[in-house]
């Protein structure tokens, strides 16, 4: 039995993940000029990044292979390859700003949730924007020539300006990860407080899915901040140990990306594809309910859902030769359920009908007894 079958791995995601990881490794190699820009102290992070890339890409390709996900994924790819691509891209850019960067839809769910989420998301984005180029060797800093008080920045192996060590720009640049860590710790704390106060979340949350990622983010941030504390206030005491612990937490976080809640970062952009799909459907028009005649379902979605039902072995959900269950609006489906029960009960909805012999009086609300 091969390793992939023992691990229950699928071929398509496996190939997709391998190619994605190879592509990233190639970009890293090109960006750091054949390894010349790599910082040996960050090699552990680089290996963890490549492993995380493989895991995330595997799950992404497996996810897009699900019939329902494939329906939207293919539509987005088709749109981006058509003449409508420019308009779709412009629309996706605006939506991306609103939904991915500003995350205003989370604010509509709850202001507290938005506050916590924005702090965590922006903190993580900032941290990754700083860390990944450093780990990949795309960005590095050296002393500028023989002047020990000036730092030289290198982007992709090319000089990109220098600045004095005691300048505000140096302070901001070198403490960027501290700002990010403070944002993440504040966001995670707010998230914990909100979860504690929210009855619904308290009941439905799971430790592995909801709480462990927050704890891991706090661990990464706090150990990162402790590095600054060690350098700035303790003359570098225990720096080596702290750096090791910090690296360990970051590697744990990176390796957890494909498995837990944080994978939603990769899933969320699908929302933009759905928005494009909906807009196209609105332009095509809505199909009326076969029972009440009210237009309710977008024509493209009806078509695709019927095909999806076929792929999911749900094709039997048809009523006679002409009516698919999808062609009933939600309200008529509810009416159908109640009326089918009514018919089975012998027409008890009819106030003038003879009382069926099995009809019973209403139970005592205290004892629940008829």
């Amino acid at each position, binding site marked *: 039995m091969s390793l992939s079958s023992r691990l229950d791995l699928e071929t398509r995601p496996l190939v997709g993940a391998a190619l994605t990881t190879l592509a990233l490794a190639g970009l890293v190699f090109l960006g750091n000029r054949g390894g010349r820009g790599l910082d040996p102290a960050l090699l552990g992070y680089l290996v963890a990044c490549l492993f995380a890339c493989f895991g995330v890409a595997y799950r992404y390709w497996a*996810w897009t292979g699900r019939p*329902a*996900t494939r329906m*939207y994924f293919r539509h987005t790819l088709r749109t981006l390859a058509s003449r409508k691509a420019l308009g779709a891209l412009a629309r996706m850019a605006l939506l991306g700003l609103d*939904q991915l960067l500003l995350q205003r839809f989370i604010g509509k*769910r709850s202001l507290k949730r938005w506050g916590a989420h924005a702090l965590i998301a922006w903190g993580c984005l900032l941290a990754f924007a700083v860390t990944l180029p450093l780990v990949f060797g795309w960005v590095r800093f050296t002393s500028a020539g023989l002047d020990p008080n000036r730092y030289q920045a290198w982007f992709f192996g090319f000089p990109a300006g220098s600045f004095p060590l005691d300048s505000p720009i140096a302070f901001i640049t070198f403490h960027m990860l501290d700002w990010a860590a403070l944002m993440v710790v504040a966001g995670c704390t707010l998230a914990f407080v909100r979860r504690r106060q*929210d*009855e*619904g979340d*308290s*009941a*439905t949350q799971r430790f592995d899915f909801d709480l462990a990622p927050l704890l891991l983010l706090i661990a990464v941030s706090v150990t990162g901040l402790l590095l600054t504390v060690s350098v700035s206030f303790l003359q570098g005491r225990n720096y080596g140990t702290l750096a090791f612990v910090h690296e360990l937490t970051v590697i744990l976080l990176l390796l957890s990306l494909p498995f837990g809640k944080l994978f*939603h970062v990769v*899933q*969320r952009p*699908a*929302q933009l594809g*759905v928005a494009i799909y909906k807009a196209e459907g609105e332009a095509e028009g809505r199909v009326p309910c*076969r029972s009440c005649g009210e237009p309710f*379902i977008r024509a493209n*979605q*009806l078509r695709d*859902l019927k095909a999806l039902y076929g792929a999911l072995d*749900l094709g*039997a*959900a*048809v*009523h*006679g030769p002409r*009516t698919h*269950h*999808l062609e*009933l*609006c939600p*309200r*008529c*489906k*509810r*009416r*159908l*359920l*109640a009326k*089918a*029960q009514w*018919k*089975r*009960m*012998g027409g008890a*909805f009819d*106030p003038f009908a003879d009382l*069926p012999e*099995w009809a019973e009086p*209403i*139970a005592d*609300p*205290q*004892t*629940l*007894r*008829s």
Partner: protein
Amino acid sequence: MAEIVPFVPPTPALTNFDEWGFFIDPNRCIGCRSCVAACAECGTHKGRPMIHLDEMDRLHSPQTAPTVCMHCEDPICAQVCPADAIKRSEDGVVHASQKPRCIGCQNCELSCPFGVPIVFSGLEQMLKCDLCYDRTSEGLRPMCATVCPSQALLYAPKAEISRMRAAQPVREFMVGGLSVKTKNALMVPDPEAPLFLDAALLIEGEL
């Protein structure tokens, strides 16, 4: 004459998913909307009632019918979800979409055989009845069943239901030719056969 055994109301802390069931009898609904008001108090979807109270034939009858999630064994809403956001917990409760994952596509809303989920487009999120999980997971009864004065919505011990009602629970529904099995039950006089949902009869006015 058989001796009447008093039914001692169980303390709420004794409710649990294995022994208690949700029984729906739309025939008993009197349209008071208590369930709608109570549902909005639920902690998992604060302020938004997830119960549907529909008028059947407003012109001819005052009859209304409440619909809550039936909590399917193999939920179609979860199967058609592109974001893998709808999960059924081990206790058989199908939860509202996971907030980090839901992308608001409406597949679930359009596919549910019972017309239950609601997608709030501004929130990009599907919400639905989750059997008041914040209450039921702690042994309390769901809000709607707690307040329903006619017990059209009843949360009671499964073992007691045969003594409490002449009609009995059915948990299998035929959606056209598709069998859908559920955790929650609808009350019918003959529970041996599944309940057939035939849209043709609804369209032709024969229901």
